[in-house]
């Protein structure tokens, strides 16, 4: 009896790497792939539109000069959108830089959705410890996005 718990503990880890966990991994894998393909396609579309229309959608013609595109304006970034509403409205107006930024925002959202899917998967597995762990990560991510807004 004294030896039994030891044996059970060392076998326990392997038994939990079952079909459910693999299913969860595959769901996450597909989610990541869709997110990456979608966001890269949007970024590529914006980049090609910028090259072919010779316009960023924000800057005057002088902005074609490389140095003005690379100049850092922390407080007055008028050459590209820096808020989610500005990105969406600019993308709807088919401004190339707004379309690129829409792709960038989708890319940033991909890991956040990954965590959300993990939360659902752990809940289905009734793995209470990991539901709390995942929920904590998700809350920190959401808070960080709100903090990012206030910093801007």
């Amino acid at each position, binding site marked *: 009896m004294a030896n039994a718990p030891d044996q059970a503990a060392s076998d*326990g*880890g*392997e038994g*939990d*790497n079952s079909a459910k*966990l693999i299913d969860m*991994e*595959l769901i*996450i*894998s597909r989610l*990541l*792939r869709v*997110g*990456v393909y979608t966001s*890269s396609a949007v*970024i*590529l579309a*914006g*980049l090609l539109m910028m*090259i072919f229309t*010779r316009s*960023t959608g924000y800057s005057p013609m002088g902005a*074609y*000069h*490389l140095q003005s*595109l*690379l*100049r*850092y*304006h*922390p407080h007055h970034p008028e050459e*590209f959108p*820096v*808020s989610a509403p500005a990105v969406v409205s600019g993308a709807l107006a088919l401004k190339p*830089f707004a379309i*690129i930024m829409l*792709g*960038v925002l989708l*890319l*940033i959202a*991909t*890991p*956040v959705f*990954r*965590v959300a899917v*993990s939360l659902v998967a752990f809940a289905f597995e009734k793995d209470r*410890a*990991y539901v709390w*762990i*995942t929920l904590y*990560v998700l809350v*920190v*991510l959401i*808070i*960080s*996005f709100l*903090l*990012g*807004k206030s910093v*801007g």
Partner: protein
Amino acid sequence: MVPRKKAMTHSIIFLIVAFGGSVLAGVFGSMLGLGGGALLVPMLTIFMGVEIHYAIGASIVSVIATSSGAAVAYVRDHLSNIRLGMLLEVATTSGAVTGAFVGGLLSGPVLSVIFAAVLMYSAFAMLRRRTDDLTTHVTPHPWAEKLKLNSSYHDKVLNQRIDYNVAGVPTGLGLMYVAGLVSGLLGVGSGVLKVPAMDLAMRVPMKVSSTTSNFMIGVTAAASAGVFFARGQINPFIAAPVALGVLVGSFLGARLLQRVASASIRKVFVIVLVLVSVEMIVKAFGIQWH
């Protein structure tokens, strides 16, 4: 008419060079669990004349791209330990949020020197460790059993199933908080800190630690990306070729990892760590002299 055309040509050359360099950063980043950021920031600032704030902004986007792009291949091959990654993300995301706050209080050169010192330490710690993949017996930490962290993977090079236990969970969490802090401060994935934390403190096999690191990096980077976005540090002209290039590179890197034994990954990893840390010290002093 003529100047405009010439300027347009310069912009196209910039986009092509940024894309090509990012492909290389993506290949090495995903193979080493670096996330590409540690290689991208020196490349953009030193060779391409990009302002450091924009380099960091583009870097954080590329870091997410690398992680999400390579994780597709890693998860499919069952190399990542999902539970281990999620547990450690508690520490990395907390650290990233802290780093975003503290980042405004410390100067760039000070941060660079601290980071370089940590990288140097990681490189020498790596050299001391054995190089084979056949893990000697590791006594699991009590938390590792409770949280189901002990697992196994199939090694394609050795063609066998490798079972492994996870040790040093509290130490690993502490190191991961620091890794997240660095990620939030400098806009890098800090895989260079995540991999040794799992490899050395938690005794996780090299392939599992580098792929789980890649898997975690995107979530950590997302915690600080919002701040960079709101500050206007993500410039689409730089971020677009960098993100696309790193995506292509990370897919190539994920395929290469399967065919290279861990010993050779480790050797490359040590050399890269030393080079990047020297680079960071040089850059820190360079900034002060300007």
